[in-house]
């Protein structure tokens, strides 16, 4: 848009802008056939934004590319939703690790961000947090027979606020651990929720809440221990997506953060896939972490290497070799084999037929 305004305004010209004007007003105001053929898409894109007059005077493909890069840079500097919803609530961070001595406090901050186009009323609440099963399905109620650490969290800022579009609200809190609390890991979640009136007057209204999970370590004599196991894989893989499952167990009394590095290499030792996953593992639980690999080649032999960080250090999981064959390749191979068999049968049949004919003669 700056270029467009400048071009029409003329008048005052300074430094680079004058240079730009010189570039945009060359003596030959037509695009060559070569330019149109090779940069037609770019030209159409720029014309859409009202650059037709300018573009008619642009002579060199590098100039077109440069303008395109400038425009793309401006237009892609922020992440946007395809169609931005009216209400878009964000909390940052989405998990917080705190270490506190028994009888002491720690301070924290959670930011509620309105990324939507309309304001909303937000309310902060705290709930207990625990997980179920290997997939770590979250639950926000108190696990029977356990301490509820959500009662340790006190907000030091208002718990309700109106957050305008594209604005944020910082909520501060303290976590006060009662004296005499046993050392170990304790868990809660701070929710920021929207309170939405049901405009429809009937039907189902929705309240949205997003959480910042608090991983609280009560310092003292804690034990840390972990194990890791990878699930077996078949030697031959035909699926488009291959789940690589690693189960990390925590036998200690406090959580730890594990990092799983997955590196898959082909026969030529070229990296075909790599991924790093970071996750908390809660005490006395096992967590199954899935890395999904989508093999690109139709046929290939791959070496899968995985390392897992545990409290005792990094552990290398056994290396696996797999053969990837896409289903259509198998079908083609079967078709070729059938064709070969039929051809052989035909040839054998003809030979027998010829043998019989020569015997009759």
């Amino acid at each position, binding site marked *: 848009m700056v270029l467009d305004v400048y071009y029409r305004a003329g008048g005052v010209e300074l430094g680079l802008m004058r240079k*730009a004007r010189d570039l945009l007003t060359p*003596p030959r105001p037509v695009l060559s056939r070569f330019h149109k053929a090779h940069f037609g898409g770019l030209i159409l894109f720029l014309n859409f934004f009202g650059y037709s007059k300018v573009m008619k005077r642009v002579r060199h493909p590098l100039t077109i590319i440069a303008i395109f890069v400038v425009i793309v840079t401006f237009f892609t500097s922020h992440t946007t939703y395809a169609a931005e919803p009216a*209400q878009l609530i964000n909390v940052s961070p989405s998990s917080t690790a705190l270490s506190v001595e028994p009888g002491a406090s720690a301070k924290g901050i959670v930011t509620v961000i*309105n990324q939507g186009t309309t304001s909303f009323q937000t309310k902060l609440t705290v709930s207990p947090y625990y997980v179920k099963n290997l997939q770590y399905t*979250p639950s926000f109620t108190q696990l029977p027979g356990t301490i509820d650490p959500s009662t340790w969290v006190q907000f030091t800022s208002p718990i309700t606020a109106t957050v305008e579009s594209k604005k944020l609200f910082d909520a501060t809190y303290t976590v006060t651990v009662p004296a005499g609390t046993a050392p170990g890991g304790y868990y809660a979640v701070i929710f920021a929720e929207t309170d939405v009136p049901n405009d429809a007057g*009937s*039907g189902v209204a*929705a309240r949205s809440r*997003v959480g910042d999970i608090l991983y609280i370590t009560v310092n003292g004599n804690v034990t840390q221990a972990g194990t890791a196991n990878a699930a077996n894989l078949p030697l031959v893989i035909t699926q488009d997506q291959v789940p690589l499952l690693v189960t990390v167990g925590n036998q200690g009394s406090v959580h730890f953060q594990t990092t799983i590095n997955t590196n898959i290499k082909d026969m030529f030792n070229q990296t075909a896939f790599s991924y790093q996953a970071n996750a908390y593992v809660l005490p006395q639980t096992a967590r199954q972490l899935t890395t999904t690999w989508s093999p690109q080649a139709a046929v290939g032999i791959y070496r899968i290497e995985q390392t897992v960080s545990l409290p005792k250090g990094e552990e290398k999981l056994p290396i696996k070799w797999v053969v990837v064959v896409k289903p259509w390749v198998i079908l083609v191979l079967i078709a070729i084999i059938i064709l070969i068999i039929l051809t052989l049968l035909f040839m054998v049949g003809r030979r027998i037929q010829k043998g019989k004919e020569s015997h009759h003669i």
Partner: protein
Amino acid sequence: MTGKQAKGISLQQFAVIAAMTILTALGSLLIPPSVVTANDTYGSGSYGSCTYNSCGITFSADAAVSLNVTPAAGLTQCSVASATVQVQTDSSTGYTLSMTDTDTDTTLNDGGSGSIATTSGTSASPTALTAGKWGYRVDGINGFGAGPTSAVSSGAVPSLNFAAVPASNTTPDTIASSSVAANPAVSTNVWFGLCINATQRSGNYTDSVTYTAVVN
């Protein structure tokens, strides 16, 4: 105008264009993000221990789903409509999106004596809707089956199965999850359906659900 210029771009002109392009591109990458304070405008900078769009979780949902249904004598009439929910996070282990009723009363109430109860189905074992029942379904997860579900307005009983929205004091139903980062945002359609017969009292029946998104 020199012959060199007439043929195309000069070295000097190219240098200017290249400089403008590189400066613009690098400018957006190299300028350090400023620290943002409370009530500041969102869009760049640091947020707690995170930088812009780096380690938070973002959620959006349609504010309400309207389920208007017109009773017909001797018929069970049903309506089905959807809400779109979206989650975005850069967490390498993805997210879990769950849903419960906002309170322990899971019926649709008209503010008087009229109510529409939840279906007896669960997300693991959903059931078909019957008159005087409402529920939800999400195509392709738990026991719901692939669908696809389509919107109905005062029509016949849907052939697809629905589940009750769990009460707020029970374990929420997981309606979407991912084991990898969800960026760009991942959308899920949550379908709500209700059926009534002619004995249902006319009125505006409402209830509310709570969507909860956390990182894994």
